[in-house]
Structure formats: C-alpha cells, structure tokens
C-alpha cells in the first residue's frame, strides 16, 4: 500500500482533485450541484488523510479521516440539501460576474499563489505541492463568497475555505491530536447549523435569500 501511494504520487493527485472541485464552483449554475462539489471536495480531503494515515501508520489519522468523512461528506451536505429543498425558491446561483470571467479570475489567483509561494517558503510537511494548493483553495473560495449573491452560496464558500484551511494545517503539521480535531468539527457543525437557521430566517423576513436585501446596516 505504501509503495503504491509513493509511486502513483496519490497525495498530489488527491490535492489536485481538491483544487479542481473548488474551481468547479465557478462554473456551476445550480445550488444542488454546488453541494455535490462540496461533497467531492470533502471526499478527496478524507481520502488524502487516509493515504497519509497509511504512509505514517498512526491510528489517530484513521479516526480523523473517518470523522472528516462523517461530518463533511454526510452530515453537512444532507443538512444543506434539506435547507435548499425547504426554501422553495429559484435554485439558480445568479452570480455578479459571468461564469467564464470568474473562471479566468480564479486562474489568475492560482497563478499568483504559485508564483508567490514557489520560492522562499520551506515546507516541512508530506508534499511540497499541497501548501500552494491549499492557499489557492482558500483564495478561490473567498472570491466565491464575494462574487455570489445567494446566502447559501456564501455558506458553501465558507465551508470550502474551511476545507482549504484544514488542508494547509494538515500538510504543515501532520494534523492535531484527536480531541482537538473533535472540538474543531463540533465548532464547525454548530456554525453550519446556526448559519442554516439564519438562512431560513432571512428567507422568511425578506422573502428571498438574496443578500442584496441586507443593505440597511452600513458603517
């Protein structure tokens, strides 16, 4: 198993998969497909943790992979899918920028990240490519949060950003003790639930989840 992971450079492939699923958020037109993109993103992340677990042979990585899969691939997609189904509004994403333009901007972001981090940063983790990819994932999901107007897409962008942060932390430090990861997952789950409640309330008060209506509080 270890030689297979080493020879096929499986870790690099999986992290490329994480980058591509994040990039696909720019092209998707329906909210359901955004949730599916998040599902695949988290699946690749869990598989990456699993392959590192085989490489290092430590048991708590297996638990971390299992926990990651349970929370991010099962609980959160089902919860968000239920909210989307209950909202009964138009399921189109309606971005501020056209899909092709946002794809171009994401490509520029990836180029900037690769040119900025290629020199001068000594990476201590398991692969020298993963840090660039995770920073690119964070920046692209920030761009998605900025450029979409639906409340749900902002939540999904936040979740993608969390995946990128997790990837960056994991690639640099080989993960944290299990109890701390449990705490992080619990926090994240509570945050998603609270955001879901807010989405439903925004829908009820403003009769749509369009965040253009939230303009009365300005600094």
């Amino acid at each position: 198993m270890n030689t297979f992971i080493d020879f096929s450079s499986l870790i690099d492939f999986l992290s490329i998969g994480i980058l591509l699923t994040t990039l696909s958020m720019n092209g998707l037109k329906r909210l359901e497909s955004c949730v599916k993109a998040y599902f695949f993103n988290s699946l690749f992340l869990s598989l990456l943790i699993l392959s590192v677990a085989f490489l290092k042979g430590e048991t708590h990585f297996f638990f971390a992979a299992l926990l990651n899969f349970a929370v991010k691939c099962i609980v959160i997609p089902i919860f968000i899918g239920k909210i989307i189904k209950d909202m009964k509004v138009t399921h189109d994403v309606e971005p501020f920028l056209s899909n092709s333009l946002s794809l171009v901007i994401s490509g520029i972001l990836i180029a900037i990240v690769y040119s900025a981090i290629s020199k001068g940063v000594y990476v201590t983790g398991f692969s020298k490519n993963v840090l660039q990819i995770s920073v690119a994932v964070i920046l692209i999901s920030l761009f998605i949060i900025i450029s979409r107007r639906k409340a749900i897409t902002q939540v999904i962008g936040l979740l993608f950003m969390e995946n990128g942060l997790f990837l960056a932390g994991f690639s640099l430090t080989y993960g944290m003790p299990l109890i701390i990861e449990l705490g992080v997952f619990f926090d994240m789950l509570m945050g998603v639930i609270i955001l879901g409640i807010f989405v439903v309330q925004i829908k009820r008060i403003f009769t749509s989840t369009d965040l253009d209506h939230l303009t009365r509080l300005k600094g």
Partner: protein
Amino acid sequence: MITLLLIPLVTGIVCFFIPKPKLIGYISFLGSLVLAGFTAVTISNVFSVQAVKEGIFYVDALSGYIMAIVVFLSCLATAYSIEYLAHELDAGLTDLKYIQRFYLLLNAFISSMLFVVMTDNLAIMWIAIEATTIISAPLIGLGFSKRDLAIEAAWKYIIL
C-alpha cells in the same frame, strides 16, 4: 481554575429555568459578582506570587489583566441588562423565552471568553475563540422575529 469557567455556566443554566424576568436578571448579576470575587482571588494570587499552571490552564500576569477586563465588563453588562430588558418587556419587544435564552447565551459567552485567556494550549485557544463567535452570533440575532435588523447584523457578523 475550572470553577471560574463553571460559575457562569451554572448561572446561565439556572437562569434558563426561572420563569420570572426580573429575578433572572438579579440572579445573573449575583452570578457575575461571585465570579468577580473568585477571579479577584486568582488574579491577586497571580500578580503577587507567580503564574499558576493547572492541567490545561495557565494564568500569568497578562491573562490576569485581560480576565479582569472581561469580568468587569460582564458585571456591567449583567447590571445594565436588568433594567434594559424590563423596559423592552414593557414595550412588548421581547418575551420570557427570549430573556431566558439571552441570559443563558450571555453567561456561556462570558465562560468561553475566560476560557480563551486561561488556556495553555494554542489549539484549544483557537477552539475557544471559535466558540465565542458561535455563541455570540445567536446572541446578536436574538429576537429576530420582532426586528428585521437583528438577522442582518448577525449574518454580517458571522460572515466577517
């Protein structure tokens, strides 16, 4: 050390089950005064003797300083909220359920704020910071059925 975290939590849970709005406020104020007393003992110990380390807790002079600020502000907030919420209740803007939830969340928030400064472990500190965000978001959005702006403020707060 852990008593400092447990006092606000217990106060919040007690407040959640009391059916009288004014009484809840007074109990919460009393809880924060007790908390201030215990914190004063710890802080004076830290300042006069040396930094205290107990399990995952570690309090030195700097965290003692910040703990003093947190506890002082929580005393002010609980004292002020008694009359404020009574006024809101008379105006019909809140009801008993919201007041109970408000004091539960407020006390949980005080507890998590103290946990941030008292812990020794960087990752646990990060979890506690996340917990303060997650607890204060519903605190901002509380009473959204009567106010449109509360939900907007809470959304902008949690996204930023």
